């Protein structure tokens, strides 16, 4: 009885080993079939090129009355071109507007936006219009920095509604001749 069981166990083990080996062999064979003859799938080299690279740092959000920095670094652009950073807003309508975050957003507060090469120049800087220039970095200059600041120009906020505006900073490389 013991001997019979031993034989049965041994046969089962051998069968398992053979089956496992067969599966492995089939897989290898399939790989070989796919990689030779017939329709061959190879690696297609898809090239791309990115030029006129730059890095800019913008304020997360604008806090009215507080100056924020806009800076550029690692500017690598073609000769005789300038990296130009401008600012705009979807809320702009005849002027910059903070909109109430509650309800339909029809409550607005007017504010002015100014930009200067440093914070001390903000007081005397002219007010920006929509798509106004915040920062310019000429080719050959790797970095640049400017300060921007918003100040309420209309009626102060009433009630406790939060007001905000989202600024869109556009980055463009323009020809110096333009």
């Amino acid at each position, binding site marked *: 009885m013991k001997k019979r069981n031993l034989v049965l166990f041994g046969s089962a083990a051998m069968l398992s080993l053979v089956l496992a080996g067969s599966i492995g062999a089939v897989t290898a064979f399939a790989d070989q079939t796919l990689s030779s003859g017939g329709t061959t799938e190879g690696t297609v080299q898809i090239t*791309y090129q990115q*030029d006129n690279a730059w890095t800019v740092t913008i304020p997360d*959000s604008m806090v009215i009355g507080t100056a924020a*920095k806009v800076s550029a670094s690692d500017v690598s652009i073609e000769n005789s071109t300038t990296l130009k950073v401008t600012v705009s807003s979807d809320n702009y309508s005849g002027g910059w507007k903070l909109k109430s975050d509650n309800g339909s957003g029809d409550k607005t507060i007017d504010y002015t936006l100014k930009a200067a090469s440093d914070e001390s120049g903000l007081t005397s800087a002219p007010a920006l219009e929509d798509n106004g220039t915040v920062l310019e970095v000429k080719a050959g200059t790797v970095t640049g920095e400017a300060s921007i600041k918003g100040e309420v120009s209309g009626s102060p906020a009433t009630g406790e509604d939060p007001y905000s505006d989202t600024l869109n900073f556009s980055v463009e490389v323009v020809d110096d001749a333009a």
Partner: protein
Amino acid sequence: MKTKRILFLSSYIALALLFVFDLIMLFCIASMKEEARFTGGVVLDPSAQDERPTETPTTMPGVTVAGFSSLTIPPDVDAIAIDLYNPAENNGYYYMTFELRLLDESEQGYEVLFKTGYVAPGKHIYQVTLSHSLPAGEYDAQLLIQPYRMRDLSPTNNVSAAVRLKVK
């Protein structure tokens, strides 16, 4: 006889347990007295701990965005190689999405060629699939880079890059 034995055993166990309990209490009291000796006689609450540092700064740092103004891709393929990334400087603060818009004469003014999901700081997108391939030529496009605050996924100010798309 058996009952007597059981009773005796139970009493013995109870006494032993009581003895152990007393030892533990004595040890605790001694520890408290020792602590009180160093704290001027005041026993401090052991659950008190140092002030936890605030995880989010009161003022968010600026958002760092990396981009380019010229992109060259091959014609008639919709899977293209590219390198879009969220700079590591934004670690802990901002995710980012990238959307390439092909400017056109439609009412919207553009069609979207691709838009990525959220990209974590330090991560790159090396391949995208365009909504359709483009024939050879040069096109005006716009790369919209939209950051989102990690803490609540609210959008911040964004960057829109004018891109000259060269298909050749």
